[in-house]
């Protein structure tokens, strides 16, 4: 197996995640926490994020389905989702969460609906990209050290 090529692909995918705004500086902090004692820390945290965010998004879906919209409840759920996005550096998701919360404050249900559809799309795309990234890393095997993409 061409491990060098796999690592190159992983590095390229990682760079694209930053260049396209999917991830921000916070992801670097997670990578900095990964070491021999926690060799899979980043993937574990990302896995936790997608599990937790799926639960929150299901709650939001249910709340949006109700005839009477509880904007306070929607805002609380979205605040939690935004917090999780912030923790892993999911930048585009975080931005859309902020917009959703603004729509809640304005009691703009149409805005909330549109925003939530976008959040679901962004969530799905980010999940696919990160799953591909970690799969490449697993195939490539351990690397000596992570390097930040040049800015």
């Amino acid at each position: 197996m061409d491990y060098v090529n796999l690592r190159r692909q992983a590095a390229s995918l990682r760079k694209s995640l930053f260049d396209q705004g999917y991830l921000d500086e916070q992801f670097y902090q997670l990578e900095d926490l990964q070491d021999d004692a926690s060799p899979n820390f980043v993937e574990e945290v990302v896995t936790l994020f997608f599990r937790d965010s799926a639960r929150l998004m299901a709650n939001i879906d249910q709340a949006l389905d109700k005839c009477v919209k509880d904007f306070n409840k929607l805002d609380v759920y979205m605040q939690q989702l935004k917090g999780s996005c912030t923790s892993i550096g999911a930048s585009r998701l975080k931005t859309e969460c902020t917009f959703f919360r603004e729509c809640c404050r304005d009691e703009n249900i149409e805005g909330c609906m549109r925003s939530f559809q976008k959040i679901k799309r962004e969530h799905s795309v980010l999940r696919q990209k990160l799953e591909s990234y970690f799969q490449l890393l697993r195939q490539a095997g351990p690397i000596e050290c992570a390097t930040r993409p040049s800015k």
Partner: protein
Amino acid sequence: MASSQVVKVLVVDDDVLTRRIYRTLLLRFGFEITEAEDGKSAVNKFIDGNEYDLVLMDKDMPRMDGVEATRALRGMGISAKVVAITGDENSRGAFLDAGADEFLLKPLNITALTDILKAFNFLN
């Protein structure tokens, strides 16, 4: 400090992801970590007789928020260092009035927290 040489930290946040990240960071420093998922659980841990040197306190949590929990701890005479870590930048005044020692905004900046831990003499 608590009776042991090891720094004992209580991480208080309703987000399991956040607690996981803090845990990994603090274990690196050789700290002993306990977690609480809301302010009421945090206060109960002290009521149960546990001792901590440091509390990392989120703000928005169910049952009891971080400001209220901080106020409750100080009211009990708890002298542990309390560092508020929250995304609510408007809560700085409330936290400090409640007795928090420091205030950090989320997302957690590792360097900023490390500087605070050094200032508290928790790190060499």
